[in-house]
């Protein structure tokens, strides 16, 4: 029987309430949203916060909407909401691709985008999606809001840019008209963490790659991406040869660790092959050749 260590529990009524509670217990308190990453860690005693702040009543943080030239996603938006969103489906198929393979439908009813990013698991799928899209993350504190690039958000396994008395409140993704995007994951069984995953978006100007973003997870890719591959593709022809060369750079740049999910060379192979596939699909979608 897995039982968390004892803790105090508070249910927050507003973001300000969360920030007040965090300030009262610096370093001791953790925010819980869906709880499907944090509670398993607590059951295994890998995490032992002395206080949990439940933010499930903050339903005003559950939204996906256009805000200027960006899509704004509230921190309490659940995986199921990301999967079913027509707005995200229209602009970024990468979310639908990824959400279909994140955990299972029941877990997706609980887990949130804010919780997933703040858990900062090295195999987290949404971290790769946010990195691929060069999203930004809005962090709120008692003194105001600040914005951090998704690629600077993760500072190591289970470590983020969110300070002790701060809270992630929103994820923002630039709208890129005409962009195609895609996500692919290899997992040992349905709903598992990734052996490796890759995500991409591609924006075309004729047959030239105007802009591109790559995301990689579970393969030790710095900042969940491969900037070498992105730089190699930008301004180049959207050809199979160029895509294959960029995928090889992903293979070379990642730093996977052998574990129960596979040896290092297999994970490097997956980084290359999945990068090639998501870039190819993104190009096809940008051209309107594939739904």
């Amino acid at each position, binding site marked *: 029987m897995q039982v968390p260590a004892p803790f105090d*529990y508070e*249910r927050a009524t507003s973001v300000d309430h969360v920030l007040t509670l965090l300030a009262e217990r610096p370093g001791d308190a953790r925010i819980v949203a869906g709880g499907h990453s944090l509670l398993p860690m607590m059951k295994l005693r890998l995490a032992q916060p002395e206080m949990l702040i439940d933010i499930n009543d903050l339903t005003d943080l559950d939204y996906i909407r256009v805000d200027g030239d960006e899509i704004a996603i509230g921190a309490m938006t659940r995986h199921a909401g990301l999967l079913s969103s027509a707005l995200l489906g229209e602009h970024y198929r990468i979310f639908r691709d990824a959400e279909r393979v994140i955990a*299972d*439908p029941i877990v997706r009813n*609980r887990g949130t985008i804010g919780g997933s990013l703040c858990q900062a698991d090295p195999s987290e799928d949404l971290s790769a999606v946010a990195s691929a899209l060069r999203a930004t993350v809005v962090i709120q504190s008692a003194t105001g809001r600040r914005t951090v690039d998704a690629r600077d958000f993760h500072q190591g396994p289970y470590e983020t840019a969110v300070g002790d008395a701060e809270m992630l409140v929103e994820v923002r993704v630039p709208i890129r008209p005409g962009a195609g995007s895609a996500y692919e994951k290899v997992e040992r069984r349905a*709903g598992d963490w990734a052996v490796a995953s890759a995500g991409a978006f591609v924006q075309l100007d004729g047959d030239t790659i105007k802009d591109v973003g790559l995301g990689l997870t579970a393969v030790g890719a710095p900042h969940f991406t491969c900037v070498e591959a992105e730089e190699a593709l930008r301004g180049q022809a959207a050809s199979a040869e160029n895509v294959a060369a960029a995928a090889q750079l992903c293979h070379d740049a990642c730093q996977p660790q052998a574990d129960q999910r596979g040896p290092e060379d297999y994970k490097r192979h997956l980084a290359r092959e999945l990068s090639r596939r998501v870039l190819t699909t993104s190009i096809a979608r940008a051209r309107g050749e594939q739904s």
Partner: protein
Amino acid sequence: MQVTMTVNGNEVTEDIEPRLLLVHFVRDVLGLTGTHWGCDTSNCGACVLWLDDVPVKSCTTLAVMASGRSVRTVEDLAQGGVLDPVQEGFMQEHGLQCGFCTPGMLMTARWLLDHDADPDENTIREAIAGNVCRCTGYENIVRSIRWAAAHADGAEQQAAPATDEVTA
């Protein structure tokens, strides 16, 4: 700390530790042992119940998180001594062998059919991807849910077994 919630339509108030998981609350505090405690790691789905009308894994939800909300467990499926069509379907199509996964399967299936009255096989298989069965190979579970979809009006339903048989 004190929690108050609605469970299967009844308001309950209990004094519990914040670290008590919802699955243990319904089973050990309320005595509703229809919800099963399986893998304890949010993988198997035997503990699925509804929290505010959405299926969740109760081994990965704190009971205090359900305070002020409504919980529905498998005990609430049969109404007035008549089985829910999904329960009837699992009987008619042999959707269980050992029965351990069945409560979670039933709660997931009921929610699916409430939102998609005529799901195809792929839709059913995706919907139950968070519910693991080690006996049936899923074929008969898919048939059972299809049966329930085809008999949503309650036709051919039998009387529910006596309560002590259901909870034994």
